[in-house]
């Protein structure tokens, strides 16, 4: 697939948001993934051209960050946190189950292109461990069974809500959001749940506040 002229127009829109054009590179690479499902050679060339960089400079950035895919991601890119907290609380078991059920490993895609798997690092949601993500939306307090359930729903096209965020859309749709184009879903779903707010609630009960912060 080659990139359309409208992608270029969107890329220029991203560039116009920044005082330094080069700052636009990260969202532009998400834009490329929104179009292509991964960072394609055409996408690298487009970014290089629009930002007056060499393709090597763009490739250096694209290969540094793990959120940029070198080959097409699944329609739903599923992450399982395997860092110690999540891993011990069930993340490792979830990974085993998903990986064997889908028959794919880390950074691999099912033959039908529906699901790709990634062993992800800490998502800063340890209160909800074990944590999974689907196209980077949170799926909290997972079990091997709930993980299989979610993935099966995604494969069969049923709507899945994030446990802390909006309904889960396709990888490409979500990449467009990451590129900085408003999807209108900012207020959809749970924003912050009991577990997240427990500490704040307790601090308020005790009349605590951070030092130096004026009320």
């Amino acid at each position, binding site marked *: 697939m080659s990139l359309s002229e409208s992608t270029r127009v969107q890329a220029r829109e991203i560039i116009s948001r920044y005082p330094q054009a080069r700052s636009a590179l990260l969202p532009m690479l998400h834009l490329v993934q929104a179009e292509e499902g991964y960072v394609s050679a055409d996408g690298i060339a487009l970014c290089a051209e629009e930002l007056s960089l*060499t*393709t*090597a400079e763009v*490739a250096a950035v694209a290969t540094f960050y793990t959120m940029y895919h070198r080959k097409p991601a699944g329609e739903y890119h599923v992450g399982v946190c395997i860092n110690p907290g999540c891993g011990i609380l069930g993340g490792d078991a979830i990974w085993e189950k998903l990986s064997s059920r889908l028959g794919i490993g880390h950074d691999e895609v099912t033959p039908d292109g529906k699901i790709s798997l990634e062993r992800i690092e800490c998502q800063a949601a340890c209160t909800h461990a074990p944590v999974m993500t689907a196209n980077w939306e949170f799926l909290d307090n997972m079990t091997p069974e709930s993980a299989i359930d979610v993935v099966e729903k995604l494969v069969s096209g049923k709507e899945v809500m994030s446990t802390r965020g909006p309904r889960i859309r396709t990888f490409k749709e979500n990449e467009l959001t990451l590129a900085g184009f408003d999807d209108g879903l900012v207020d959809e779903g749970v924003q912050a749940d009991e577990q997240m707010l427990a500490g704040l609630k307790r601090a308020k009960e005790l009349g605590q506040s951070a030092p130096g912060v004026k009320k």
Partner: protein
Amino acid sequence: MTVTTQTVTVTVDGVVVEVPAGTLIIRVAEMLGTAIPRFCDHPLLDPVAACRMCLVEIEGQGKPQPSCAVTVSDGMVIKTQHTSEMAEKAQAGVMEFLLINHPLDCPICDKGGECPLQNQAMTNGQGETRFEGTKRTFPKPINVSAQVLLDRERCVSCARCTRFADQIAGDPFIELLERGAKQQVGTSEDQPFDSYFSGNTIQICPVGALTSAKYRFRSRPFDLISTPTACEHCASGCALRTDVRRSTVMRRLAWDAPEVNEEWNCDKGRFAFPYTSEGRLTHPLVRDEAGNLGPASWPEALRVAAAGLAGIGKSTAVLTGGRVTVEDAKAYASFAREVLGTNDVDFRARAVSNEETAFLANHVANKPMDVTYGDLEAAKSVLLVSFEPEDESPIVFLRLRKAALSGTTKVFAVAPYTSAGLAKMKGTLLAAGPREEVSVIASAASHLSGDSVILVGERAAQTPGALTAVAELAAKTGAKLAWIPRRAGDRGALDAGLLPIDGRNTSEIVSATGSAVKGLVIGGVSPEDVDGDLLSAIDKAQFVVSLETRHTEITAEADVVLPVAVVTEKAGTFRNWEGRDRSFAAVIPTPGALSDADVLGELARELGKSLSVSDFWASATKPALKADAASTESVGNGQAVLSTWRHLLDKGSLQSGEPYLAATARVAVVRVSPATAQKLNLVDGGTATVSCCGNSASAPLIVTAGMTDDVVWLPANSEGSSLNLPSGCVVEVSQGGN
């Protein structure tokens, strides 16, 4: 001007020193003679603290700090590995990490024997590794360009090469890709590291990760005999080091000359040396009565040459080419004027004009060195006229780019379009084709002041009025003026007097040969460089003596061929564009190798005369500078005015025999403005053919915004273009071609 430098007092290993504020710790240690081990640190590159080898202890700071990236502050107490256990342990630990994935292939590695990693593993590492796993390996080597090879498993990710490419050359085609344990230097798939300066990355690589296809596995450093030399490829005047093994040049390196090339050189200077040993003339040749050229002894060849020249000395012309040393140039000047008695002498193997002759005589010849590289760096603005530094004097380009990036110098170029080099210097285009140049030069005064420099290239001779306009501009604005020829021998030749004062210039010599000019003495000239048909002139000449290093089209037609030494076989001096003498020693002392000066001396003796060392310019009558008349040739339908110059890596004869270098040359394109493309029915990306007077070339067309209308640009005599016409010609431009 007094410069006040704020200083701070610091203690290094118990020694108290006062140093300029802002000095890096590693530099302070160097001043004290303390070597802190390092890989990524390079004085001419920005600090990056990538390798972590130079860790030292700073009192009051809990963790060891990279001395290559921390500047001193007043009262700082620094302890290096010599006095701090913490620093010593930190360095040994970093070394152990660096060696975890490093192969122990030193015995077959090009760098072994001159390798900072090998050396510092000995001085600052430990004898044994504790790593018991399997080392990471990569397929090896990969080509980052045709010339530069990368063995990734040897790399310590110091980022010297990538920083050089970005910060110095402005060609960031190599980058650190991936991250963590997978981090590696690489290129993108579609763009190799084709930079004119790529060889420097090999030289500054502190391990054996980058090697050249030319030198890989050819020799060990400890088998080489090294000689400091000067580059013969252009007028930049680089200091080089030439390394020889068993009387064969194995490689050339950029050598230290802070006032000239700093520590860099270009790939032409680094790799284009096979010509010194290929196709060499080994003995004199003399044409017999049957017209056959055959070997002859030196006495016979000199006798025949002298006999041939004796009767026609005053009607003989001398063309010396651009690669003569100062010493050889003086010999040619004396031989022509005093021995032969002719003023028909010209060093310019290219398009020339009498306006240029007057300009050179009045504004350049024998002048003291009043514009230097340092002046370029200090200038507020630099105006380039008929001069594309990246292609025509690459070290000038590097220095101008450095000055421009540091913010002191603004670069302006009178040129038909914004070249890649001009963009890398953040320069401003003063758009002008050959026909607009003179008026644009005159109007450039607003960009110049007494703190400016005007650099004018040898191509200005192709534009009538340009040199006069430049001289007037310098006088009006107070800007300093320097002339930068392409060839290493040109300034020395000019100072020696190889300019046709009261004589015929190169073009006039070519057209008068067979009539007023009867004999020719030709040094290192390639016929295609000359504006005019030199080969048919040779045909018409009564007697031709050729002094050459190799078999050429000219030696094949000459009556007497006298073999002369190449730069590796003789000592000498090139005078660079600044007027700075760049001396070199003989790299391979060769019994029987005679320099041009030696041969001319013998020939003079054979003619019963001797060479003198008189100063030509002391008594020369300089012609007054006045503008030649501008061309009035009309530009018709399907035509445009040609603008052209040579790429740095072109089809020049001194680059022969080095295919890896040739493969990194830029390939020709044709450029026209959008309006001109429309007028001439040319399609962007298609093929365009440029032709004139039986000479034509076809190349892909790039429609170039901001370019002067009614001008077509195409490189001369370069990869993909055999075009050999001067700028200013009216040429036919058409779509298509092969």
